[in-house]
């Protein structure tokens, strides 16, 4: 073994230390290759092919035809309208997740009686499996027997809403469910960041006569930013790719495939329509969109600079 290492050392100019590190890294590299790199490369190749139900075993490469089809052929649903819905879905969700999360974190960061109870209750949506949440909310949105319409009609004297029958309302129903599900994550992250801000800063601000909104703008928000920016980035990626809620609340994109976001449409294209290559091309487009967003957002927000 020693002679082998010496030979490697001489040949490649690497020391025992580096070799040892390489051996430690190798298992994770092999596993990552199997579960990330290989599927990714396979997906790229598949997106350039024509794999569908009839060509599932003897598909061939056809170039960029699937990509051209996505951008030029009006589909059911159409790519551009689904993309727009995905942007709205992600934007609205993230705004509410962050706003609600930070607000509740600020409240919980105060001296409050029964704080631990509130904290536990507020984290509950996050602790319940998404499938259960989605199906429960679907029941709540039922036109005649759902609790939401019962409250609207009985206590607010307003007309019942066709939550799951009309495209816009069904989409709003999905967003409401995901807002409920997603704010605890941002709350927990923000709370952690708030607790790390030194009290001396607030004391100094108090001496200077700063009011609460000055402290929020000049101390709290700048100091939680390094933590919140990566959390928001993650939140955008998760929300953009959140299949479960749309799929289960709208029952596979109902009504009439009008509530799809890109990722649910990819799933439908692959596993309901068996258009595997089309779905792969669509998922590559999603990947590029999210990669571009992450790079731009992290650069513009200078999150890493602030952190280090």
């Amino acid at each position: 073994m020693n002679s082998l290492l010496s030979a490697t050392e001489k040949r490649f100019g690497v020391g025992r230390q580096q070799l040892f590190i390489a051996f430690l890294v190798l298992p994770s590299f092999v596993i990552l290759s199997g579960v990330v790199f290989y599927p990714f490369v396979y997906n790229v190749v598949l997106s350039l092919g024509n794999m569908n139900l009839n060509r599932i075993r003897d598909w061939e490469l056809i170039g960029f035809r699937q990509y051209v089809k996505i951008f030029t052929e009006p589909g059911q649903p159409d790519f551009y309208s689904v993309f727009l819905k995905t942007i709205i879905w992600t934007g609205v969700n993230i705004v509410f997740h962050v706003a609600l999360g930070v607000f509740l974190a600020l409240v919980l960061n105060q001296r409050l009686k029964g704080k631990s109870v509130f904290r536990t209750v507020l984290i509950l949506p996050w602790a319940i499996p998404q499938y259960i949440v989605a199906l429960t909310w679907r029941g709540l949105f039922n036109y005649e027997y759902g609790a939401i319409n019962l409250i609207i009609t009985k206590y607010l004297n307003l007309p019942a809403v066709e939550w799951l029958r009309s495209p816009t309302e069904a989409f709003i129903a999905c967003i409401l469910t995901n807002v409920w599900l997603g704010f605890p994550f941002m709350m927990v992250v923000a709370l952690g960041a708030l607790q790390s801000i030194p009290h001396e800063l607030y004391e100094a601000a108090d001496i200077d006569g700063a009011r609460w909104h000055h402290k929020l703008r000049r101390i709290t928000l700048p100091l939680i930013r390094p933590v919140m920016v990566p959390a928001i980035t993650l939140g955008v990626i998760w929300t953009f790719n959140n299949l479960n809620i749309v799929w289960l609340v709208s029952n596979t994109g109902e009504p009439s495939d009008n509530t799809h976001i890109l990722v649910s449409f990819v799933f439908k294209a692959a596993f309901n329509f068996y258009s595997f290559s089309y779905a792969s091309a669509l998922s590559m487009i999603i990947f590029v969109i999210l990669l571009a967003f992450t790079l731009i957002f992290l650069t513009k927000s200078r999150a890493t600079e602030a952190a280090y």
Partner: protein
Amino acid sequence: MRMIFCIGAMLGILAGCSPPKSDENRVVIWHQMRPDEQNVLQRQLKRYMESKPGVTVVDLYKETETLRSAYIVASIAGQGPDLVHGPSDPIGIYEATRTIQPLENHLNSDFLTDFDSSAILWYRGHLYQIADKIGNHLALLYNKKFLQRPPTTEKELIEVSKIIQDRHGYTAGRPNVYGLSWNYIEPFFFIPFYTGFGGWVLGPDGVTPTLDNPSMVRALGFIRELRDKHKIVPNEADYEIADALFKDEKTAMLINGDWSWAGYLQGGIDLGVAPLPMITETGKWCAPMTSPKGYSLNVNIDEKKIPLVLDVLRFLLSRENQLETARELTTAPTRKSVYREPEIVQNEILKNSLLQIRRGRSMPVVPEMRAVWDAMRPGYQAVMGGALTAEEAAKQMQRLAVRKIREMNE
């Protein structure tokens, strides 16, 4: 020494990642059976395992859509269960993806003689499925607490529904008991109306969709009228809602399939099952799609394991087990000899179920049917949601079906 330890540990980790070896004494069945069906299956499998020490048979439930897609994906990857159980409609897709294998070389003709011809599914010259139940069909279920005699025409259906609704009163403008309910989401539940108005999903060639025609427009218009004009069906209903309404005695009649009947009986509903009514305008019965429901053999099974898998299959299809299943689930058996049993002959639900099967139409198993379902679903939902007129929906269904079939064959 440290280096050797690391390499050893690494190899150990990698060894843990290798795929498990196929167990020759373990048979796996994937199915989409409902809980009461599962109970019967598991009891039968338990008896089998007791009679064959050392053999394990595992059954695994998957939701209908998941079963189909998961099976295809698993089988293409060289994995999957030994037997897949379900309705016959995905057989065309399984054949196209070469994920199931022909059964004719494994089961001799003596064994097959006793089976009803509709239970043995031949497709493109091969036997791909052998059924333990036939029908898998919709019928008109009614609660005898609300009506003693089921309606036989659509006019009677509307009339009797209104009487029941008026008799039980209204709360905030909503009937306390609806006349009729069914699933507005899945087009499978719409087919009886379409056939009642004289339509059928595929043309004479068996592969061309026929969804844009006066029958479709009339059928879609009719179901809209049931809700918006006659107000005898709920405003919104998927499978679960319709099912819950019937169980809670909030709907007098329900359109549902044979898989659900045993559950209602066990739930204490005074259940009646009747064939779906006739549409007087056309003089045609509302004909549901019928299909066998049975087992297919995974293409990946090891040659050495096939005899054991077939032994399990023969056991599950045995006369005794079929009788037990029919008795407990009131589903139509597939062995002709079982039909002569007194408990089958004298069972009113089974008698009406068999009549409904005779009035039904076989579900096409061609892969194009997949495109037809996917094309019908948005239009059907849009009509019930008020987003499209019947004419627009019919046009959209046809256009989508043609496009999906073209894409499928690209």
